[in-house]
């Protein structure tokens, strides 16, 4: 369970990026966050696994406070997978090595164990035949699936996705979304920053619309699409749905 309590984040004392965000995400739930760029969606994700330091509020992951100095942040992060817009695969390592690095370093797994697990994960995301290729030899969709496998190799209970498909060619988006749908149905706790409304409709339990560091709309999926309360959300939905249709 992810418990976000009154989180505020600002840069340079005045530019407020997150403004008093509160939200509880239950275990096994999938939450989609959408909103215009600069609305604080990505910053919120980075706060959740301690990649960004926020000035006010608290975030608990299964009861453990992210910013408590007594928390072993590395151990905590190991259980929270993260997938980035620009993949961020390590370019000097093969797909296989990208996946096995952290399990071997953090969990002290043997190479054999780590590689078996990595192979199984690559199979699960449908690209085991690319295991020994370098990132630059892979397509965008393949890269992102390796990145998902890399995160899954740490056996996380939670996965954070930061616009995972927005750097992909259109024909590769579905291969990544398919993997994510599978994860959501498999009981993974997921927070997904995306504008893929088809994906949201299919698997999201809740959808949040953010603007200027605040949660403007926070509703169950069907309510969000059928009966959005704020005019700002309606305007955003109209644009994004028309655009995609």
């Amino acid at each position: 369970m992810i418990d976000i309590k009154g989180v505020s984040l600002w840069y340079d004392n005045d530019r407020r990026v997150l403004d008093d965000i509160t939200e509880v995400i239950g275990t096994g739930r999938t939450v989609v966050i959408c909103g215009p760029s600069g609305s604080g969606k990505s910053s919120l994700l980075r706060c959740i696994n301690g990649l960004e330091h926020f000035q006010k509020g608290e975030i608990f992951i299964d009861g453990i406070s992210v910013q408590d100095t007594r928390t072993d942040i590395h151990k905590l992060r190991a259980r929270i997978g993260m997938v980035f817009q620009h993949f961020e695969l390590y370019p000097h390592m093969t797909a296989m090595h990208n996946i096995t690095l952290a399990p071997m370093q953090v969990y002290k797994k043997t190479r054999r164990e780590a590689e078996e697990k990595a192979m199984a994960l690559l199979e699960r995301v449908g690209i085991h035949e690319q295991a020994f290729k370098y990132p630059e030899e892979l397509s965008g969709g393949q890269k992102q699936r390796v990145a998902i496998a890399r995160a899954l190799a740490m056996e996380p209970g939670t996965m954070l996705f930061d616009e995972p498909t927005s750097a992909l060619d259109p024909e590769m988006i579905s291969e990544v979304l398919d993997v994510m749908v599978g994860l959501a149905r498999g009981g993974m706790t997921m927070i997904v920053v995306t504008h893929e409304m088809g994906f949201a409709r299919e698997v999201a339990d809740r959808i949040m619309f953010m603007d200027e560091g605040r949660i403007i709309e926070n509703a169950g999926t069907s309510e969000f699409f059928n009966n959005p309360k704020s005019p700002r959300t309606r305007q955003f939905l109209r644009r994004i749905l028309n655009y995609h249709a």
Partner: protein
Amino acid sequence: MDLGVIARNFPFMAGGLLLTFELALITIAGGFLVGVVLALCRLSSRSWLYYPATVYVHFFRGLPLILVIFWLYFLSPVVTGSSLKAFNAAIISFVLFEAAYFAEIIRAGVQSLSRGQIMAAYSTGLTQFQSARHVILPQAVRNMVPALVTQAVIIFQDTSLAYVIGLREFLRRVNLVDAREARSVELYLFAGLVYFIICSVGSMAGSRLEKRTKRS
């Protein structure tokens, strides 16, 4: 021109070249290692690491190398009570001095990486040290190859300064031969040629290495 003077004294001078190489290689290895540590401190968000390393780098970059050698050699007996051997004094001053330059090269190389790579490494639970060791430094070193090779070549030339404390490296031996034979023109042209050839070979090897690391 009497090139015979070079032939006659060649073994003696070549012996000095060996010492020059020894000084250069130890300095490059030691300076690089100390430089990595300094660079990591300079990149750290912890002020107790950042500030001492920053002061160190600015201090040594603000001094001529020859002064560092003098200080270490002539002041260390005053401070510690025992004198340093010339070779040790030279190595220590070279490593201390060049580490500051290596640190800045390495820091720039690390900063050239996208912040995303660091976040990706952290997000899988790797510690700062593990991220640096496996993700950041291997990539940064590739970006740094040209600057590192240039620095190595400069170090090779800088070793000639060890002559000020009486170390008989290559240039010092050329100097000694000249004192005996009074053939400055031939001898210093020869010395220049030797440095030029070795440094050119080093630079060419560097650009080959650069091409190779780009490909892989």
